[in-house]
């Protein structure tokens, strides 16, 4: 009965959404939006207006998002860390084909993630998407070979450096351009639709990509590694690596 009710509710909502909401409403944009649309490309030099808004006009907001992601990953890692005295049972090793394929694909996938966030000001990509692709590459490596461990010291170092670089870029903008994360006067805006253009946007997106990639990779490593000893006979493979 409850299911029928929720199905009916879903059907009604779907019908309303389908019939009432048109694809893209053609209203006049507000004053702020029209300023962005009219002056965004000249002021930022990026060919992708969405990226210009996200990283430049709303750069402080993006800094906040990255901080929120960092805090959530830190909290998850704190909760999920393996308690001492519990050893995990080594899982079945994956087949050789999968291991070889994962090792072969790891570098191209990381390269593709770098491509995504370096080209953030030209294509729909950006720091978060590129970071997700890099984290997926690390996850593939972890799925194929569980004895593989991330170099946590290096990852933490890289992550802190990226966050520090973001704030430093902001203060440089404050010193030179007159406002926090200002795009003017720091770097030449360059030519439209070229890789080296759009002022500080590629730098910020590279830093965001590195930060998000390392954070998500560390989260996935902690999640994969937090398995408990659940008392099954480990006929397959030895005990887990160096605890």
């Amino acid at each position: 009965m409850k299911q029928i009710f929720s199905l009916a509710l879903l059907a009604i909502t779907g019908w309303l959404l389908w019939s009432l909401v048109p694809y893209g409403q053609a209203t006049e944009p507000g004053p702020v939006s029209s300023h962005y649309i009219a002056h965004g490309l000249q002021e930022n030099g990026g060919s992708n207006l969405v990226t210009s808004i996200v990283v430049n006009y709303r750069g402080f907001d993006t800094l906040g998002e990255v901080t929120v992601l960092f805090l959530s990953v830190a909290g998850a890692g704190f909760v999920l860390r393996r308690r001492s005295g519990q050893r995990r049972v080594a899982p079945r090793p994956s087949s050789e084909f999968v291991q070889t394929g994962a090792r072969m694909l790891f570098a191209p996938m990381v390269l593709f993630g770098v491509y995504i966030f370096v080209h953030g000001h030209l294509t729909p990509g950006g720091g978060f998407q590129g970071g997700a692709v890099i984290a997926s590459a690390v996850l593939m490596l972890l799925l194929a070979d569980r004895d593989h461990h991330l170099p946590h010291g290096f990852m933490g170092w890289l992550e802190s450096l990226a966050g520090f670089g973001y704030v430093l870029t902001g203060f440089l903008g404050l010193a030179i351009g007159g406002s926090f994360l200002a795009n003017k006067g720091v770097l030449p805006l360059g030519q439209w639709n070229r890789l080296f253009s759009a002022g500080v946007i590629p730098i910020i997106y590279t830093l965001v990509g590195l930060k998000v990639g390392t954070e998500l990779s560390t989260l996935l490593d902690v999640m994969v590694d937090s398995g408990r000893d659940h008392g099954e006979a480990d006929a397959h493979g030895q005990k887990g690596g160096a605890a």
Partner: protein
Amino acid sequence: MIIVDILICLVLLAAGVGAMLQRNLVASSVLVGVVSLMVSILFLRIGAPDVAMTEAAIGAGLSTVIFLIAVRRTEEEEQ
């Protein structure tokens, strides 16, 4: 073109209802991934490639895997 939209919306609705009614947690998380995938196609259809890419990378790719790992961990805890 409208028929493609209707088919994608049908898949989206069926996957959403299935994810709600499904008892098996793994199947449910896979269905949530399918919902994300269809939403990503719809975002592409209405001209928002940025959101579509984020949805495809994080919604359909990473979060399904994170759900799977979480289900696995809870099963291990229950045993």
